[in-house]
């Protein structure tokens, strides 16, 4: 069965590959399975990359999804995670070279999906944060929620996301945008980060204490507004633990 299964599996992903002779009483009908495989995986990719689908239109997206799934079928039955390599696939397509932002927008679609399914973690109660010794804040390590995601892009990915998901959103500006995704309850919330914000969050994600994270933020933007960053993290329920080194 293994060698035969190999040929059947190949035929499902490549209609030009021949089916073994004499295998079925109605060989043409195996195409029904091929249709199910391709249609269901195209659907999974269109659903999983809603902003990309909107940007490209259904027809182009379905064509790209078909080529992607034939080259990169899912590696597990967890279709909620399918499409890890899709951003790079879009970036490698020379016909899409004029749309340089597609890869990072696809990463945003993917990050929102991952944030949706990430583990739950209750935010740290405000009084525990307030109880941290003010003179030793620089030594404090923050634990961030599993749903938190950080994306850095030379493209206006937040504006593009918003323009394609909200009615009456302003047209995207020609700016680089870093995006923080938090999950206050069950719905992931992407927000643009001010200058220095991504450096701060990236440092926290790497386990740096607050003092070092602040230095990293100031190296990117001397006037970084740390209070505003804390507000973003707190309102997103993204701080789940704090400890002194």
């Amino acid at each position, binding site marked *: 069965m293994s060698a035969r299964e*190999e040929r059947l599996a190949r035929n499902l992903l490549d209609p030009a590959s021949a089916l073994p002779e004499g295998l079925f009483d109605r060989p043409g009908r195996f195409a*029904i399975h091929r249709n199910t495989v391709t249609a269901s995986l195209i659907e999974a990719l269109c659903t999983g990359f809603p902003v990309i689908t909107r940007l490209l239109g259904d027809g182009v997206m379905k064509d790209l999804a078909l080529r992607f799934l034939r080259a990169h079928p899912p590696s597990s*039955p967890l279709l909620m995670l399918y499409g890890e390599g899709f951003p790079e696939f879009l970036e490698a397509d020379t016909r899409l070279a004029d749309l340089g932002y597609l890869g990072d927008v696809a990463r945003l679609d993917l990050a929102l999906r991952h944030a949706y399914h990430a583990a739950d973690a209750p935010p740290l109660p405000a009084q525990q944060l307030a109880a941290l010794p003010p003179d030793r804040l620089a030594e404090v390590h923050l634990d961030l929620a599993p749903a938190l995601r950080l994306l850095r892009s030379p493209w206006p990915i937040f504006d593009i996301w918003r323009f394609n998901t909200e009615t009456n959103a302003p047209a995207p500006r020609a700016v680089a945008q870093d995006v923080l995704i938090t999950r206050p309850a069950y719905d992931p919330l992407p927000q643009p980060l001010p200058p220095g914000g991504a450096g701060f969050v990236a440092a926290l994600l790497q386990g740096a204490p607050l003092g070092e994270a602040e230095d990293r933020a100031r190296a990117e933007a001397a006037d970084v507004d740390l209070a505003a960053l804390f507000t973003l993290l707190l309102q997103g329920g993204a701080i789940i633990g704090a400890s002194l080194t």
Partner: protein
Amino acid sequence: MPGAARQAALPDATGVGFKPQHFNDLCAAPGMVRWLEIHAENYMGDGGRPLAQLRHLNERFPISVHGVGLGLGGSDRLDPDHLARLRHLCDWLAPASFSEHLAWSSHDGAFLNDLLPLPYTDATLTRVADHIDQVQAFLGRRMLLENPSSYVSFTESTWTEPAFLAELSRRTGCGLLLDINNVFVSACNLGFSPQAYVEALPLDQVAEIHLGGHEAQQDDQGAPVLIDSHGAPVADPVWALLDHTLARSGPRPVLIEWDNDIPDWPVLAAEAGRAARALGSLSR
């Protein structure tokens, strides 16, 4: 064992395949719906709304965990990661039932997202029986095995499908999940009597019944072919086949599956009501 007290058989009543968009309506107005089925793979994330909804529903309804990705019939070994995810889900839910399909769906690490056909030979029988033994031992529970919907049959098959299912049940002790729509679809596509198929099964081993909608299309020769689409109401001849089955099996848990072009809750609830009436007419 967490939640072990909840682990009981599904009731001989109507259930539906749970869809997240129905959550509020279902909780407010379940109608004749007495239990729910979920696709295991949709609840294998780490957290968030899907698991929160499921925790809530698990307090209120008996749950059937229905796997669609294990590939019991495949020639590869069963994926240990996937088995572990199934065990984790079954351990915290303590569901009333766990079921999977007589099919393969992965090859060489690629998951193809379809329930693919098997030749019914002694070699396949041994392989599937070994896989079922492994699943039942690993999960520590009896599983149900579902009959597929077929578009092709293998020329080398030496077993009929009902005899194959009966033998698997006999060898492994697994129960059967009888999908009546699949029987009807396969019977039309392959040219056998759906009533005779049902009568050939060990109905005492059938612990759950599925009903779903199908779609009529044409194959590449222009011949009619039924597609198991789960995107339409249950067809009248399938309801008749349900009556034929229940008259022989006695009452069973009956599930309405509607996975594509999902309707508003009242439409699905009405289908469940019709299944409840089919069950109710047995006792009169």
